């Protein structure tokens, strides 16, 4: 026991547990569903995780500061639709321009959220609930209820979802999934090695102390929202590439999926703790369950949502209860995890 408690911290156990759970889920469904353990399942799951993971990374930045962004679903839809329309109109637009446009649009919408929260001092849940509706309404109005269709899109975009990064045996690692993993890793490094990352934790951990320590709290919160919007914009581009056909309801529900991923991934909803790896694993677990339950005929469609809801409740409850228990076990082993004097 002591060897374990010395090697890892309770907070890290969260991520290890999630990874283990993912393995258990895969093994369980392999025994239940014919032909489940295959490259096709892997592709299906990774294609869907790639998008939600990028949104969840942005959501994590915001949640760490003790805020929330409920407008990400609308930003994804807006960016997917707007960029899709541009590309459909002019097939010669460069990929770099399309991606930059998606990210820029998202950042702009994130900046509106951030300005209202950080400088307008309106609670984030209210601001983003409002912009959730507003961004979607602008999209509906702009579209005239028309749909972006696959055939109108340039060939490079249609090919993108099937582009492989590398192939390991039967498993294809798609470019889009690789991009998502890259985003997760980059922002994990930001959290650990950039002052900006550490300040996000500080603000969520104790906002008053952050102000007293002279941190530019408003600017940091604003930046978190801008980045969250930018990442949602990028996810919108990925959404466009994956589905091709974009209606005005694109991305709806992603706000809740991303919050669920973040919470299941062990990011404290009251800010101050959590990691990108955790959020990524949370997104993976939720998506994996969703995809698997669809194919598991024993569970009706209706119960699927209830099961996922249960998972979220469990995750939040365990955050408070289990972590405290673990800290106590660690403390009994005489390993200081709470910075007690080690005299």
């Amino acid at each position, binding site marked *: 026991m002591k060897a374990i408690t010395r090697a890892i911290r309770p907070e890290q156990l969260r991520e290890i547990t999630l990874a283990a759970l993912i393995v258990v889920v895969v093994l369980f469904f392999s025994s239940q569903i014919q032909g489940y353990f295959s490259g096709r399942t892997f592709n299906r799951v990774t294609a869907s995780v790639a998008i939600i993971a990028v949104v969840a990374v942005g959501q994590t930045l915001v949640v760490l500061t003790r805020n929330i962004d409920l407008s990400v679903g609308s930003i994804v839809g807006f960016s997917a639709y707007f960029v899709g329309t541009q590309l459909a109109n002019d097939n010669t637009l460069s990929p770099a321009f399309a991606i930059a446009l998606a990210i820029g649009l998202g950042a702009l919408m994130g900046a509106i959220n951030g300005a209202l929260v950080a400088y307008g001092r309106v609670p984030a849940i209210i601001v983003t609930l409002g912009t959730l509706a507003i961004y979607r309404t602008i999209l509906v109005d702009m579209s005239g209820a028309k749909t972006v269709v696959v055939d109108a899109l340039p060939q490079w975009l249609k090919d993108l979802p099937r582009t492989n990064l590398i192939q390991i045996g039967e498993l294809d690692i798609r470019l889009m999934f690789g991009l998502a993993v890259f985003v997760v890793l980059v922002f994990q490094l930001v959290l650990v090695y950039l002052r900006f990352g*550490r300040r996000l*934790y500080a603000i969520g951990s*104790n906002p008053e*102390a952050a102000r007293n320590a002279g*941190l530019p709290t408003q600017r940091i919160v604003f930046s978190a929202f801008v980045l969250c919007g930018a990442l949602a914009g990028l996810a919108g581009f990925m959404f466009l590439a994956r589905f091709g056909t974009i209606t005005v309801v694109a991305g709806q529900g992603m706000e809740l999926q991303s919050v669920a991923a973040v919470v299941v991934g062990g990011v404290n909803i009251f800010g101050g703790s959590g990691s990108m790896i955790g959020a990524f694993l949370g997104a993976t677990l939720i998506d994996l369950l969703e995809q698997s339950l669809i194919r598991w005929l024993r569970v009706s469609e209706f119960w699927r949502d209830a099961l996922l809801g249960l998972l979220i409740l469990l995750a939040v409850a365990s955050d408070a209860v289990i972590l405290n228990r673990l800290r106590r076990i660690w403390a009994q082993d005489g390993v*200081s995890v709470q910075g007690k004097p*080690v005299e």
Partner: protein
Amino acid sequence: MLASPDKAPVLEMHHISKRFDATQALDDVSLTLYPGEVHALLGENGAGKSTLIKIMTGIHQPDAGEIVLDGQPVQIANAMQAQRLGIAAIYQEPMIFPDLSVAENIFIGHAERTPFVNWGRIVREAEAILGRLDVKLDVRMPARGLTLAAQQAVEIAKAISLQVRVLIMDEPTASLSAHEVEQLFRLVDALRRQGVAILFISHRLDEVFAIADRVTVFRDGRWISTRLRSEVTPEGAIRDMVGREIGDFFAKTPAAQRGESLLSVRGLSKRGVFSDISFDVHRGEVLGFAGLVGARRTDVGLALFGIEPADSGEIVFEGRPCTIRSPEQAMRLGIAYVSEDRRQLGLSLPQSITANITLPLLRRYAAAFGLLDFKAEEQTAERYKQQLAIRAPNVQVEVGKLSGGNQQKVMLAKWLNTAPKLLILDEPTRGIDVGAKAEVHHIINALAQQGIGIIMISSDLPEVLGMSDRVLVMREGRQMGVFDRAQATQERIMAAAIGGAIPDSPAPRADGEGMA
């Protein structure tokens, strides 16, 4: 060790004034800090100490006056700038980030040249600083769960890492044990030797005399005196702190004769909060509770009203022993509690005067089918509006729109309507203007004459002395004594509240003697 006058001062505050609405928080005060001195700042609650700190740390801007750092006039616009100038503050409750590691807590406010966190360096330097302070902590672990003393050590380490020149310590010892205080003083001494100027604020005179080089006293927002420690006695300091005259503005009608005992409390204790509190309240008597902030007087009030019940002790109410575990129980006995915090605990600001007054007794206003009888409610509200002279166009006005004094009267009305036998008033006149204050005092007198027993918790010493038949003094959760009206002087009560030696007999009033 003493600040020698030949050294140039680090920080000079010249003729600082600051006003908040009706309150003149600071009135033309000056203070000079020399490198390597511990400068104690004393004063009662409301003397302006906190305001001065907030001006030094850039949280408030002075209305008038000049701040000079190293001979250069400066403006301290915000916390970040104060930090850049080398001014930092440590509060009674340290400001730590529980989710960040100890090392990060120390270095969080640092402006580095690159945007990268150099973990190796941060950990090394944090260990070095704590090592120099002789504090043993694992700097890689989250700060969650550190003891208060350890948190303060982290804050001091943070100040050192910022190469602070002026360190303000606002009641740093208030929540520490004696042993921890000793450790803290060693840290303070280490800082002093490094040439840091320390502004040390404490209510504990013994500590001040143990560590300070110079002592400054503020009173009512004004500067009273600054002396070398060797030239001050505790008695002199107390005199400077309280030495003001009591106007005859407290028209106290002493209890004609003490009625029978209403409430009798013996050995009331709550672990870690207060212990062994014993007193009696008689019908028609005002028992004042005096003490400094943190003396735990409010906690005794909360215990008697059942909000935070006591652990042990006897309570006898109207001759019957009882335990009070909830506000409902207390209200059934006939106890009412008018809380200190009108906005958070006492009143529902968006609701009308009527709705607020009738809230505790809504059952009484329920007519057929449980529908509320608005007319009866309004009559009650009107009656109190006249009786207590609540100034409002009508009783349907939102309470949030009233002035502080009138809000206080609505609070009183609310509880008087429950026909209490014992009324606990917690800071009944805090934050209301002089006129309204006199009216509230008048009401309290009238209630006592009707035979209601009153416990009045107040930090306003003249008010306690002027209004009470007897005064109970608390200090850090302990009862320091009960003084009859005839024996209660400002000096004796202040001495008991601070823990100094209590003058034997009613000492002659210090009539402006302390006014330097």
